[in-house]
């Protein structure tokens, strides 16, 4: 099977996955206590006619399965309606929020790899030496530190006390130097745990590969140690890291819920929290779908990277 056909198949498989995700969110939302109409009218009393017309506007008068189908029909044309809370277009709100979360999650992910891969290599090559011990302690600390705590401490030390960074995002476009500078602390907060995980994983994966026969052969034929490690061992050790790195990107979107709160970052995480508290069904549904699509796409990308890393894998 060619790569093109493989990608196509995977995209087709993604359709039932996304449908499943939306059905689950829809059912969970409707299982929550509380009537969304009450949230819309602000827990006041309105005339029965007005209540009926609000119910009809958001299809809340139909059975749940029919509400779902109506929602799905609109979602397919990217028509997510208006937020009953703010009166603004849901698509426009998500269009603003999504790039912010993707930028933060992407930056944290790159940071995790940029720290985790070199640290993992060093730890494996210098096994048992101080560099290895240090990386293991650091990785353990990285995994064990809750990101809400790390975020607040970084904010207090570097932004409030030292004044190196702003506490809240600057009034600048997302793709600007001022914004890139501001993103440093949230990126570190979000990326630390993932960096630690990548370090640990790569270290153990490389240690296993270093025992393999082909490493002895490579050394025996007089290859430089550097070439043995970087060209042979690293490449073979990366497969589990790639799997985890793909999953971590999804995990980073989750982590964004906390980090966005601390750094006042206008992303999807805060939007979701707020919308759930407000029983804002249209926004929650659309946000879950958009995040689901992003995660499916990332995992597809991961599978393509497999093939690039390991020529034995053919689709």
């Amino acid at each position, binding site marked *: 099977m060619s790569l093109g056909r493989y990608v196509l198949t995977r995209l087709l498989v993604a359709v039932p996955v996304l449908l499943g995700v939306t059905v689950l969110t829809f059912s969970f939302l409707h299982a929550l206590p509380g009537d969304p109409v009450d949230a819309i009218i602000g827990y006041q009393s*309105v005339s029965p006619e007005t209540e009926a017309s609000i119910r009809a506007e958001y299809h809340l008068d139909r059975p749940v399965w029919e509400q779902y189908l109506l929602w799905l029909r609109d979602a397919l044309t990217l028509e997510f309606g208006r937020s009953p809370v703010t*009166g603004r277009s849901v698509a426009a709100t998500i269009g603003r929020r999504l790039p912010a979360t993707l930028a933060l999650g992407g930056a944290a992910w790159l940071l995790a790899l940029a720290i985790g891969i070199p640290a993992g290599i060093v730890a494996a090559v210098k096994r048992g030496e101080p560099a290895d011990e240090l990386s293991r302690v650091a990785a353990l600390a990285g995994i064990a530190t809750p990101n809400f705590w790390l975020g607040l401490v970084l904010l207090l030390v570097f932004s409030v006390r030292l004044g190196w960074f702003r506490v*809240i995002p600057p009034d600048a476009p997302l793709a600007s130097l001022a914004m890139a500078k501001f993103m440093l602390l949230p990126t570190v907060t979000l990326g630390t745990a993932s960096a630690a995980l990548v370090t640990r994983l790569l270290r153990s994966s490389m240690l296993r590969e270093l025992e393999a026969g082909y490493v002895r052969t490579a050394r025996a034929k007089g290859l430089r140690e550097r070439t043995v490690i970087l060209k042979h061992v690293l490449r073979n050790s990366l497969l589990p890291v790639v799997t985890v790195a793909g999953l971590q990107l999804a995990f980073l979107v989750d982590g964004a819920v906390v980090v966005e709160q*601390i750094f*006042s970052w206008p992303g999807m995480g805060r*939007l979701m929290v707020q919308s759930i508290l407000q029983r804002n069904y249209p926004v929650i549904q659309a946000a879950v779908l958009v995040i689901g699509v992003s995660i499916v796409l990332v995992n597809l990308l991961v599978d393509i990277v497999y093939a690039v890393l390991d020529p034995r894998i053919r689709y």
Partner: protein
Amino acid sequence: MNDTASSRATQLVYEGLTGVDFDGTVRPVLAEDWTQLDPTTYRVSLREGVRFHNGEELTAAHVAGSFERYEGEARESDVTDWYDGSEIVDDYTIDVRCWREYGPFEQRLFDLPIVPMAAIDGDLDLASRPVGTGPYRFDDYQSGDHWRLTRFADYWFDGDETVPAPAPIETVTLEIITEAAARQGALEAGDIDFSDGVPSASLADLERDAAYGVDRHVGGGFDLVIYPLYREPFSNAQVRRGCNMLIPRETIVENVYHGLGQPAYTPISPLLETYADEEFRERIADEYVRPD
């Protein structure tokens, strides 16, 4: 819109017929004067020469339209609780009819924004572009990030001894900061000039620091316990009274609110002086806080 930042922002954009000052006294805003013609009818004279941010000039038709636009909307109870109809007498005079005698009429007018005809006719979507008669006009809103407002050059108010005019600040940016610790951080780092929601544990520190001014107001909010009266044993008044005596009010005020607040024995705020006189307090104390 019903999130905090949005309501703060729109308070500067919209105005009602009346306003309520810091003492709770009703003051004229867009209404210059009003008289009660009979128990359910009020004649309201409007301020002349008031402009909306989109250039329209305030008339009685705006007032009628602003009240009537609520019908069938989620917020209709703001109006349908009392409003019956109105007759426009002339451009600057309108008779407002209530369907029942309505005590808080003047206070009610305070948070009913008067909006331009463009919004009443449906050409202007106030949700995405708020337009009113207030001292600040809408400039920009970024979801989850900020509201920006700029001073309205044609604002009607000429200033008085307490409030200067024009407003001294040209651009107001309301940053949306959900985390209370980050609000305090932003204040200390100078990213913001003012915050109304720092953690209560930090208030004492900020008060000691000469660099900050701390202003406190008594709020009307309270915590309460609701007993399910329909269920044993809460249907028994003795049990409820007993539970009530177990609530460590002083400890809650001290530890949960860091001393900000007062123990309450009824849902009636001390703001309502009439209900908070000595005799009343004693009776309440007698009823609820007897140690036996």
